């Protein structure tokens, strides 16, 4: 203070200090803002998906009695009978509605009950032809539009012409519900059925099984190949131009757009090697190719993180290099390796574009019988349903997304748990 020469510099440093504090506060704020934005997007995404998709988890079924009139059933050609029409007429009778000459009312009644009913009647007769002439009771899902009405997504206030259901149909649905014939319940069909042209019968089981098979193929190939490649590159390969070249290329491959892998799969596996289109085997191979660079990079990073003192200890004990790697280094790196594998496979699980290239977009109503038979997978199922015209498929799209997200969360949680457990052990 007395020293005049010190004053300006002290002022300066105080000013500078203030600036530094301000900068610190500012960057902290930026960071928090970034987190808020990221979380915000995530919340909006999840909320939207759940809000659109949660309705898929319950559905409505109708219990209806059908008199199997012997006069109306052609025993010689059972498959040729229109049992849906028969059932619709029964339903109208129950509702005490007189059908018109053209059968329009029956037609509209048919649109309320799942086509499954016809197959169920046919099945019952095939099982035991003696049921003809008796009255059977069936519980089947209502048609998707009726389901949407019960869920409040089709509203009476909408003008009749803009609605999928006529006023008459709505009246009938109300009466059926009032009579206690319609029951709301958990939509187990969504988890036990595969894709279908009828939204009320479409489920994700086929896609889940397809995804699982495909992931199995991908893991079976990509994990051993990727891990061993990484071990060789990291622990055995001579450091030189060649290994540098390989390293650069692996890093580049990890950045190649997935659709290019799809194209590669199409040319290599389907066109040249004659693998079946649309099959989990082919899809798994493509995903294995796609996951390989990521697995190699993650494994190498995990191996690199193992302290060299462990290698020295093992080598100093007279362990061979292979023993050093497989007894000490790889087990040490295992949590990191497994995290890398699971994350890259979770990524593969959600991959759509390359699978479209190899024809997995085909409509596949059943479960895949083998690795080589046609199958659907979850992300492609989402894609297919999203493109469907019926409104009822849209809730299924969101439902399938929820199922996919649940699988992702499960896989990521597994990665976390594995990492925790293995790190805790020592």
């Amino acid at each position, binding site marked *: 203070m007395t020293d005049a020469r010190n004053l300006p510099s002290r002022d300066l440093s105080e000013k500078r200090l203030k600036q530094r504090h301000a900068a610190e506060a500012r960057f902290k704020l930026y960071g928090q803002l970034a987190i808020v934005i990221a979380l915000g997007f995530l919340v909006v995404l999840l909320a939207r998906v759940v809000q659109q998709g949660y309705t898929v988890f319950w559905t409505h079924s109708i219990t209806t009695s059908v008199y199997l009139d012997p006069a109306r059933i052609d025993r010689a050609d059972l498959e040729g009978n229109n049992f849906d029409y028969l059932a619709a007429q029964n339903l109208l009778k129950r509702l005490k509605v007189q059908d018109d000459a053209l059968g329009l009312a029956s037609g509209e009644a048919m649109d309320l009950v799942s086509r499954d009913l016809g197959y169920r009647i046919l099945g019952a007769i095939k099982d035991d032809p003696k049921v003809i002439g008796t009255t059977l009771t069936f519980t089947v899902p209502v048609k998707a539009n009726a389901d949407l009405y019960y869920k409040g997504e089709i509203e009476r206030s909408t003008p009749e012409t803009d609605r999928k259901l006529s006023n008459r149909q709505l009246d009938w649905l109300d009466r059926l519900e009032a009579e206690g014939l319609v029951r709301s319940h958990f939509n187990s069909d969504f988890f036990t059925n595969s894709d279908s042209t009828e939204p009320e019968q479409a489920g994700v089981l086929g896609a889940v099984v397809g995804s699982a098979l495909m992931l199995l193929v991908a893991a079976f190939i990509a994990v051993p190949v990727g891990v061993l490649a990484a071990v060789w590159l990291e622990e055995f390969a001579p450091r030189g131009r060649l290994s540098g070249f390989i390293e650069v290329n692996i890093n580049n491959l990890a950045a190649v757009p997935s659709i290019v892998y799809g194209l590669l799969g199409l040319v290599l596996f389907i066109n040249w090697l004659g693998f079946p289109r649309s099959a989990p085997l082919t899809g798994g191979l493509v995903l294995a190719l796609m996951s390989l660079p990521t697995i190699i990079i993650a494994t190498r990073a995990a191996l690199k993180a193992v302290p060299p003192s462990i290698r*020295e*200890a093992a080598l100093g004990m007279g362990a061979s290099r292979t023993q050093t790697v497989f*007894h000490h280094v790889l087990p040490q790196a295992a949590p990191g390796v497994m995290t890398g594998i699971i994350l890259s496979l979770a990524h593969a699980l959600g991959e759509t574009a390359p699978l479209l290239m190899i024809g997995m977009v085909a409509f596949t109503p059943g479960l895949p019988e083998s690795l080589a038979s046609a199958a659907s997978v979850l992300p492609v199922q989402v894609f297919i349903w999203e493109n469907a015209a019926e409104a009822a498929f849209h809730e299924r799209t969101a439902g399938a997304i929820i199922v996919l997200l649940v699988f992702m969360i499960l896989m990521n949680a597994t990665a976390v748990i594995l990492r925790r457990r293995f790190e805790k052990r*020592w």
Partner: protein
Amino acid sequence: MAAEGNPLPHDTQLRPPAVAAHTPVANAGVKIHCQGVSAFYGDKQALHDISIDIPDRAVTAFIGPSGCGKSTFLRCINRMNDTIPGARVTGRIEIDGEDVNARSVDPVVLRSRVGMVFQKPNPFPKSIFENVAYGPRIHGLANGKAELEAIVEASLKKAGLWDEVSDRLHQSGSSLSGGQQQRLVIARAIAVQPRVILMDEPCSALDPIATARIEELIDELRRQYCIVIVTHSMAQAARVSQRTAFFHLGQLVEQGSTEDIFTNPREKRTQDYITGRFG
């Protein structure tokens, strides 16, 4: 660095008589015989023409400033330098008259005969038992579980660790304290019944009490093994070793009995170093 002016002529003048003077003395119990050993990392020469005889059942200390090549030389003896890309060793190193660099010698077998203890305690991230059992297991030294357990117990006893860990053999080796870890590593090394134990600054990461225990242990082990220890602590070299070799700039400046080196060094550089004038 007063001595740096003409290290080479000085050295070449002196070494032949020095070796000649020592060889007969140590000959009775020479364990490791080194002749003209040079080591290179790529183009850089880390060791210049080292010749030394290391006696059996005694502790030989390598001292010298950082980067003088003493650790490099230590690693030549069990061929740990093989694991470093670009490292090359010339010259002759014999253990019990057998050339370690001979083509017929498998480094894996060599390292089972020449145990090594490193600067930082580096137990395997496995149980205490597994740490000690690993060597006998990979070299097939134990017939059955009982024998293996006996080896583990004997090794831990030799390393003076048994009483502290006998009730928790299956706990992780890294749960031990630094000094205990280092003794565990020594137990691991002697479990394969080596002929030579190399120690690369074994106490530099330890506190004085743990250091004292390790030094006691080294003193006990010297009755059975040929021990070579690299150390930065002159006091430690004076305490534990019978013979001392002083390295500087990749050259072996002086070697002799520890007493002679510390009380009556022939070389000015040695004197400067042990009196703390450089290093």
